[in-house]
């Protein structure tokens, strides 16, 4: 029932609602922009993941040396967000047209590929050619980026890692073990290591990916280097028998107790510690572990450590020379914020980053043409990278974010027998089919 007082109230209420709506729309409209992007940025902002502690020191050395002029024109400003939030942050900034001039790729390559597809990124093939610096990026690194990020050269390789099995040469010598060249040899050594009271393989089940890396590298050796590309293209399924066989091989290592009793809860630092204190003779890892091997926490000594490629699988289509490689979380440039001054920064980085990083003991995908005094094991990695002719990716590299997450979080269940190989591969395949 309408009363005089309610009618009197209705008009102002409508007015208030109108005012509120206009205010909301105005505020929503104002929410875009910001974030340091735009056509002519006033600073060279670099948004990176907080976990990345290697890039900033090299950039700092550049602004004090080779890139001082660029820094004076467009000062470098580094900001960080946790890696887990990077994808969401980049998406938000991209949707507002506020991407900073340089930023790290998120954790999932598929997200980076979508940014490239949306035209939000600089094409480095073109930009570096214009600057006369195209030859400053190692072809192997460019090849890895193209495989990862949808075929284009839209990211810069601030890191370049190869992966393999790092081993304790002292323990190998003491037990008379030769570097294994086949999977069967590797399993034999693992059995003897277990019998000697060691944890044969140190691996973090809490992280998951150190275990799925084993599945994928087995696949690259057994099915061939295009094993996971076929899955990404829909030509094969992870539930196919030859794919399940790879998961079963790694699950079997777990069933034999070769990862230790508490692999599910072991974090990445714990797994490093197990290896660097001589409790585990082997760890599958990327060359980023060099920092720990050459660091103070290595009780075994860097001189007692080396690495070998993942061994061959009998009758497999892959080759032991195909190293899994990655470019860490590479950085890229916003197409919208790519001004003349930003191009100046790109040229300076391309020309000098490789040498500056090498002086800090880092191996990157930028060409380093100056001599540096590297530890022996680091030099071995650098030589392997320089002579490597073929590379492969890793298990989750071509998967959508959901499949990638499900793969990592369920890997420990595979090696502890809580999931069968069929169930594990089925879960990941289902996430690929329904991203």
């Amino acid at each position: 029932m309408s009363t005089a007082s309610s009618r009197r109230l209705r008009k102002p209420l409508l007015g208030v609602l109108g005012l509120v709506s206009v205010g909301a729309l105005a505020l929503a409209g104002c929410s875009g922009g910001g974030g340091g992007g735009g056509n002519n940025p006033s600073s060279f902002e670099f948004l990176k993941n907080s976990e990345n502690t290697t890039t900033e020191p090299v950039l700092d050395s550049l602004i004090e040396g080779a890139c001082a002029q660029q820094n004076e024109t467009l000062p470098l400003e580094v900001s960080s967000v946790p890696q887990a939030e990077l994808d969401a942050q980049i998406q938000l900034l991209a949707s507002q047209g506020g991407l900073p001039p340089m930023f790290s790729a998120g954790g999932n390559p598929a997200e980076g590929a979508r940014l490239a597809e949306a035209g939000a990124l600089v094409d480095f093939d073109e930009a570096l050619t214009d600057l006369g610096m195209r030859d400053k990026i190692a072809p192997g690194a460019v090849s890895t980026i193209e495989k990862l990020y949808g075929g284009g050269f839209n990211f810069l390789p601030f890191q370049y890692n190869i992966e393999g099995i790092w081993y304790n040469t002292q323990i190998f010598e003491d037990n008379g073990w030769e570097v294994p060249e086949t999977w069967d040899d590797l399993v034999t050594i693992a059995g003897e290591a277990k019998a000697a009271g060691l944890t044969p393989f140190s691996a973090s089940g809490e992280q998951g990916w150190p275990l799925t890396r084993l599945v994928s590298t087995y696949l690259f050796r057994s099915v061939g280097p295009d094993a996971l590309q076929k899955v990404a293209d829909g030509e094969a399924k992870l539930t196919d028998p030859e794919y399940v066989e790879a998961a079963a091989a790694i699950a079997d290592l777990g069933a034999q107790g070769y990862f230790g009793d508490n692999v599910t809860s072991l974090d990445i630092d714990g797994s490093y510690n197990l290896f660097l204190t001589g409790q585990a003779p082997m760890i599958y890892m990327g060359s980023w572990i060099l920092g720990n091997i050459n660091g103070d926490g290595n009780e075994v000594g860097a001189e007692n450590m080396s690495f070998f490629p993942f061994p061959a699988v009998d009758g497999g289509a892959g080759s032991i020379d195909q190293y899994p490689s990655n470019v860490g979380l590479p950085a890229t440039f916003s197409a919208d914020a790519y001004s003349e001054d930003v191009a100046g920064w790109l040229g300076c980085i391309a020309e000098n980053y490789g040498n500056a990083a090498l002086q800090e003991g880092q191996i990157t995908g930028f060409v380093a043409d100056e001599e540096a005094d590297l530890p022996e094991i680091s030099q071995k990695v650098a030589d392997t990278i320089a002579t490597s002719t073929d590379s492969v990716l890793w298990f989750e590299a071509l998967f959508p974010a959901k499949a990638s997450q499900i793969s990592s979080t369920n890997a420990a269940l595979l090696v502890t027998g809580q999931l069968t190989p069929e169930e594990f591969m089925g879960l990941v395949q289902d996430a690929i089919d329904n991203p």
Partner: protein
Amino acid sequence: MKSVLGDRKAIILLLTPALLVYTVIMLAPVVWSLGLTFFSGSPLMGFEFSGLANFERLIADSAVWDAFWFTVRYAVLVTLLQVVLGYGLALLYNFVLRKSSVLVRTLVFFPVVLPTVAVSLLYQKIFQSAPSDGFVNELLVNVGLDSVDWLGAGTTAFVVIVIMDVWRSIGFYGILIFSGLLDIPDEIIESARLDGARGVSLFRHIVLPMSLPILFASFIFSINGTIKVFDSVFALTGGGPGSSTTPLTLYMYRTAFQYSDYGYGSTIALLLTVMCLVITLFIFRSSRRDITV
């Protein structure tokens, strides 16, 4: 003052700033999120109208229902433990410790003020099994039992989450219910005692009925908090191992922000909202009659 508060124009004028802020910060995102349930896509690639596809997907998605059942199990168990143990504490404060309960109250309340992530890290260490045993496993080994990988299996990880969250929040419910017990007039308790009521009979016929309003309020607080559990689980187990301790909130967060599926993430959020609404209405309905009479 009375004339100002009796003037509708003045009321509207005074309320407008708050209403504006509330609308922009609370209502607009809710309506926006509701609208997103009919779309698929992301801010980067653009959104596309998908009708009821997200709802059909929700019904067929086994991961959602796994997360739903985890949430229900967690919410029911933790709510019961929080309120029942909190009630026990309140009775202890009020009828046993009386005025000397201040120190105990402070000690029991202390975990409430700790950051959730700090508590989760503490419990990770307490129940740790790798690379070395934590306090609980050392205790087990010392009494001749085997060490347990508590966070390595879904069942034991669930137990740790429940223990941690009850420990973390029980002080709050103890104080909340204690404040309700203080409202029971001393005269009624004394009269009941003069009539011969003691112990269980005093509790059953006088204290329990008169503390039902605060118990209902506690249940509503608790169930709404536990259904929306996120930070403690995320920090302690990350939803794992596998997805065995993934609540709906975490699945929603991953779907929207890690898988960039904002429409489906909003649909999961809607399911969560409906859950909270239904349970709150159910509890309100149960408490509709005036139980204090």
